[in-house]
């Protein structure tokens, strides 16, 4: 049985080195130390853990890797420059290793903060202190604990009460050397405020192996609205882990999209807790695995309040001996009456060597609720393939049309056209559509 082994570089000394280097405040140092103790106390996941049962754990190993610090070089790759130009963003940050290598912001709206976490700690310490670790902390598993103890930098987004940010904000996380990389996102949207924020993970391929451990905390106050996109398109020498959690207040609405396209192996834990009546969470997921990639997604829709609505749709296509695991739970607390919760996972297998496991679950503690879940996994319907080929489309073009059609149910709900176009382009490149180059 595959077991994971600890990495001596992830130590008390490493925590103290970060605290000292950045001259961090005492409260943060204490949080880090506590998180490291929690990390050390928690066992690594094993196949016996229900949430990790079908995960190819070895592909998320972190032993033998140094902690990533500064990047090998400060340059922003051509690839990221193109993504920035294409993104329509009002504010952009580019992270590489522990450094911010590029920033541009022309945010017109009053009081909006969009900066890296280090700068936020210096300039807005009380705000950061109030929210950091409030949604994702050492209690959310071994990898979340590791991030809480050793994160180096990340992004802080704060939108004050009643402010609506017109254009999207985006952070690009890049890399140019191997090791264990740890980044953190904290998004706080005030009462009746509104913003769109994109986290994108991408890099040019390099020789060493990178294990990237991300944590994403989202706080939506009453009436707040956030469109959030997590777009993972690392090169194949990377393993990616992301613990993404949101607390959604009364009448607040979260629209999240989690995209997995790159990396050798990637796991996204996407969780939302609906804390107030009228809270809404749309959770979209899209993945396309090829050439042996392994994608994992664990989702939680936690209805802690009455009259809340959550709607989850994760769809993925697989080929070339790839694998995917989807495991999702809807939890309805006692008293969360009039809950409306839906969960759907669908997988399209483009060849017989690929496999997908889908495990939807419900835990319902209230009696006046509407909940449904469903999953399907299957090959391309032969009648569809035959129809398209009978019009002269080659098998390759027919497959492209069918994959596009399959993913359309998700893509048609993505309200950010630039993001939709980019995802479509990467999918086309993976399918080998002539003239399209975006795959890494």
């Amino acid at each position: 049985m595959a077991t994971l082994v600890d990495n001596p570089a992830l130590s008390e000394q490493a925590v103290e080195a970060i605290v000292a280097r950045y001259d961090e405040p005492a409260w943060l140092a204490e949080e880090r130390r506590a998180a490291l103790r929690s990390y050390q106390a928690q066992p690594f996941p094993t196949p016996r853990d229900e949430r990790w049962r079908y995960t190819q754990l070895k592909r998320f190993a972190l032993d033998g890797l140094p902690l990533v610090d500064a990047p090998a070089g400060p340059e922003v790759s051509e690839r990221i420059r193109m993504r920035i130009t294409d993104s329509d963003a009002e504010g952009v940050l580019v992270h590489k290793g522990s450094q911010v290598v590029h920033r541009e912001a022309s945010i017109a709206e009053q009081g909006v903060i969009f900066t890296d976490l280090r700068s936020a700690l210096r300039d807005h310490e009380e705000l950061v202190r109030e929210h950091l670790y409030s949604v994702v902390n050492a209690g959310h598993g071994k990898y979340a604990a590791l991030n809480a103890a050793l994160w180096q930098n990340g992004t802080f987004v704060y939108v004050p009460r009643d402010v609506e940010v017109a254009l999207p904000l985006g952070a690009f996380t890049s890399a140019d050397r191997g090791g264990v990389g740890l980044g953190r996102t904290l998004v706080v949207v005030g009462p009746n405020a509104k913003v769109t924020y994109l986290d994108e993970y991408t890099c040019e391929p390099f020789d060493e192996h990178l294990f990237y451990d991300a944590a994403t905390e989202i706080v939506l106050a009453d009436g707040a609205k956030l469109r959030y996109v997590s777009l993972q398109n690392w090169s194949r020498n990377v393993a990616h882990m992301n613990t993404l959690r949101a607390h959604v207040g009364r009448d607040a609405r979260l629209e999240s999209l989690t995209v997995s396209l790159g990396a050798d192996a990637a796991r996204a834990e996407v969780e939302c807790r609906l804390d107030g009546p009228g809270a809404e969470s749309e959770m979209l997921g899209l993945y396309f695995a090829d050439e042996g990639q392994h994608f994992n997604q664990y989702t939680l829709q936690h209805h802690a309040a009455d009259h809340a609505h959550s709607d989850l749709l994760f769809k993925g296509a697989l080929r070339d001996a790839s694998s995917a695991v989807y495991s999702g739970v809807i939890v309805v607390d006692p008293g969360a009456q009039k809950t409306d919760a839906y969960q759907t996972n669908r997988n399209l297998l483009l060849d017989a060597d690929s496999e997908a496991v889908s495990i939807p679950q419900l835990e319902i503690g209230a009696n006046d609720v509407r909940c449904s879940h469903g999953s399907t996994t299957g090959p391309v319907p032969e009648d569809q393939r035959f129809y398209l080929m009978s019009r002269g489309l080659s098998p390759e073009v027919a497959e492209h049309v069918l994959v596009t059609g399959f993913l359309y149910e998700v893509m048609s709900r993505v309200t950010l056209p630039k993001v939709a176009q980019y995802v479509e382009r990467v999918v086309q490149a993976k399918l080998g559509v002539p003239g399209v180059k975006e795959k890494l």
Partner: protein
Amino acid sequence: MSDTTLEIRNLHARIAGGETILRGVDLVVPRGEVHALMGPNGSGKSTLAKIIAGDPAYEVTDGEILLEGEDVLALEPDERARAGLYLAFQYPVEVPGVSIANFLRLALNARRDEDDEIGVMEFYQKLQRAVAALDWDESILERNLHEGFSGGEKKRSEILQLLVLEPKYAILDETDSGLDVDALKVVAKGVNAARGPEFGALLITHYQRLLNYIVPDRVHVMVQGRVVTEGPKELAMELDQKGYDWVREQVGA
């Protein structure tokens, strides 16, 4: 035969690994003519249509399908289409996320060299002509392929595609079934628009009704996996009045 026909010669076929359906079909459709293929339910008409197009759900055990002298049995469905065959499906599939216009552009470009994609003007002229021939609104071109279409709209889309792709030979598999008279007239108008010296068609139908609007040059009758008789267009009328028992008796089937 000659190199201006679609010829089916002694075709035997079965469901892949299963029941035998075609037991020696012989049939010739010359280019420039429209033929009808009639017959009772279960006689193998739709199976023949799908086998001509290359449906992998069936296995040919004997015989030939000659497209202007070339046997197409070894060709994949897309290769047959590019060689000039077209099947109007009885039950067209729905493909979300692809508009009819984009789908037709892919289909047209599949017939051209990679560095010779169809020009915008030429493409839209083709589409506009086809839409007009079917009394349709151009907005239909932006809808996703058959997504949310009624049965009648799907049949109309099959004819639209035929008009745009301009095949040498088309097989229309019960394109009339489920249509009311108005819809039938529209579909017939589309098929008649395609008629000409460069186009051959085989209309598969149960009913003589369609043949009031698309008058065939010849009528073939299929019973139990074989074409048992054929004749001029009047044969369709006769079948409509007398039913198929009469044919069965005549051929001792």
